[in-house]
């Protein structure tokens, strides 16, 4: 029994290690190819950069504090916009899903906003909120809020009717039904909404900073691109990707903690 189990564990471990090795090998191969293409000038190094150049550029940007400055600027915009999106989006979505008439009244408006490319509103935001953080936060908010609204709305509309019937049979009031049935069963939807909103929000930060302003990773990328500093563009891209991975991983960790009842 015990040896069966440790056997199983060893096999599982081997499987994981192999997977890690394979994906690592793909990265190494890709970077080698890139490096070679640049070194042997298969492509113009001026436009293509190379992994070593990117690392060197990163080192320079880190040591002179530029990267940190821009990262903090972007992080501030992202966090403020995202927090506001959660603060507005979750209650609005819940209300839309819970109150039938509210939904009927507002749902066409929501769909109109949902499908529109948010960046189209950036010029308006700049006029309203200025070139500083305000317009950027507004764009992040607008980008991130809809996945949250829609997911919470769907969560409320997909409450298992059997659970609701149990609540009603035990004399639950409307508020108690909401608190003891609707809210707990919406947690998985909330987490999906947060992850989607996170992606949209990051997109919003970069788009807003590319559009205008004088700081942030989007600005860094835009400026470096305009001045043919491809190495710096890649540094910016990598930092943004890392941003995304870190937030996504932590959300997925939280979701495992909160969804414990779904997995046996």
């Amino acid at each position, binding site marked *: 029994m015990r040896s069966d189990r440790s056997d199983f564990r060893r096999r599982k471990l081997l499987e994981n290690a192999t997977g890690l090795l394979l994906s690592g090998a793909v990265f190494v191969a890709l970077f080698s190819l890139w490096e070679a293409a640049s070194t042997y000038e298969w492509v113009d190094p001026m436009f293509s950069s190379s992994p070593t150049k990117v690392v060197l550029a990163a080192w320079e940007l880190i040591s002179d504090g530029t990267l940190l400055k821009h990262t903090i600027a972007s992080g501030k915009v992202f966090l403020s916009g995202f927090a506001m999106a959660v603060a507005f989006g979750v209650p609005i979505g819940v209300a839309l899903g819970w109150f039938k008439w509210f939904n009927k009244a507002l749902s066409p408006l929501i769909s109109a906003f949902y499908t529109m490319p948010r960046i189209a509103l950036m010029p308006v935001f700049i006029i309203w909120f200025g070139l500083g953080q305000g317009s950027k936060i507004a764009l992040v908010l607008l980008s991130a809020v809809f996945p949250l609204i829609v997911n919470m709305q769907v969560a409320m509309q997909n409450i298992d009717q059997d659970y609701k019937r*149990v609540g*009603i049979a035990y004399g639950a009031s409307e508020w108690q039904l909401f608190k003891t049935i609707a809210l707990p069963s919406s947690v998985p939807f909330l987490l999906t909404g947060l992850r989607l909103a996170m992606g949209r929000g990051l997109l919003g930060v970069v788009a807003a900073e590319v559009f205008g302003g004088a700081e942030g990773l989007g600005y860094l990328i835009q400026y470096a691109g305009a001045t043919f500093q491809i190495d710096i563009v890649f540094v910016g891209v990598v930092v943004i990707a890392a941003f995304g991975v870190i937030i996504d991983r932590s959300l997925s960790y939280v979701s495992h903690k909160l969804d414990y009842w779904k997995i*046996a």
Partner: protein
Amino acid sequence: MNEAFAARDFGTSLREIAVPPQASPVAADYDEALARAASSDAEPILDVRDLVVTYQNQKTGELTEAISGVSLQIEPGEFVTVVGLSGCGKSSFLSAVAGLLKASSGTISVAGREVNKPGPDRSVVFQKATLLPWRTVMDNITYGLDLRGTPKKEARRKAEKYIDLVQLRGFEHFHPNALSGGMQQRVNLARALVTDPHLLLLDEPFAALDAITRESMQNELLSIWDKTRKSVLMVTHQIDEAVLLSDRVIVFSTRPARIVAEIKIKLPRPRAPEVKFEEGFDRHVKEIFAHIHQSAPKKKEWSYEI
């Protein structure tokens, strides 16, 4: 995890034998129920008069009569079962008594008070256990008490004795999806009992279980009822289940439901599962079956329906 698996496989049948009926954790309830039964002879726990229930199809707006003039009384401490073909309206009847379905006409009174919505005087055990998956076994059992604002401590104290009664000791902190179907149904039963209702409503409580689990659950319900002596209205399509558990069996006609027969089950109490082998048991089963058979639509009408 291994422990849970063991319980899943063997718990039901072994635990059955392990607990002697006299070691009742709810003896006080038993006396109380007997006293209640003796003192309030005058007033039935459930009094349904000329109940009519009509459904409206949500798409077409078409009206269908599900129950057509049913009157039924249940005395304190009595176990009454309604049987009938599927779709005959017996579940609608139970839903109406539970207050989940509006009566079109007629009255339903529980312990002398007319009811038209769910209330603490009734508890329903649904066919599907429908435990809230984000609550532990303990928190599922106390759900009804929580809704009533019973303090957490008191709710837990009350739940404790029902955890023993339905033999879930050791599983209080499990989540429902880690339990077998039979165990989930026990939680469902405990959740209904812990609120101490005047009337317990069982809606085909064991229909979703496999045959072996169902039988052991029936036996368990028999001993639980002996310990608590609740007034029960059960709905089932299992005739032997009805005879085993009930004091009285009501046979419903096909839709719209009317009472076609009422059979007093003259088997001694307290009953052991072995009562099934007695000759009287089979006679009751046959009698009820005959009534149901008569209520079934004749061949001629079937072809007409098609």
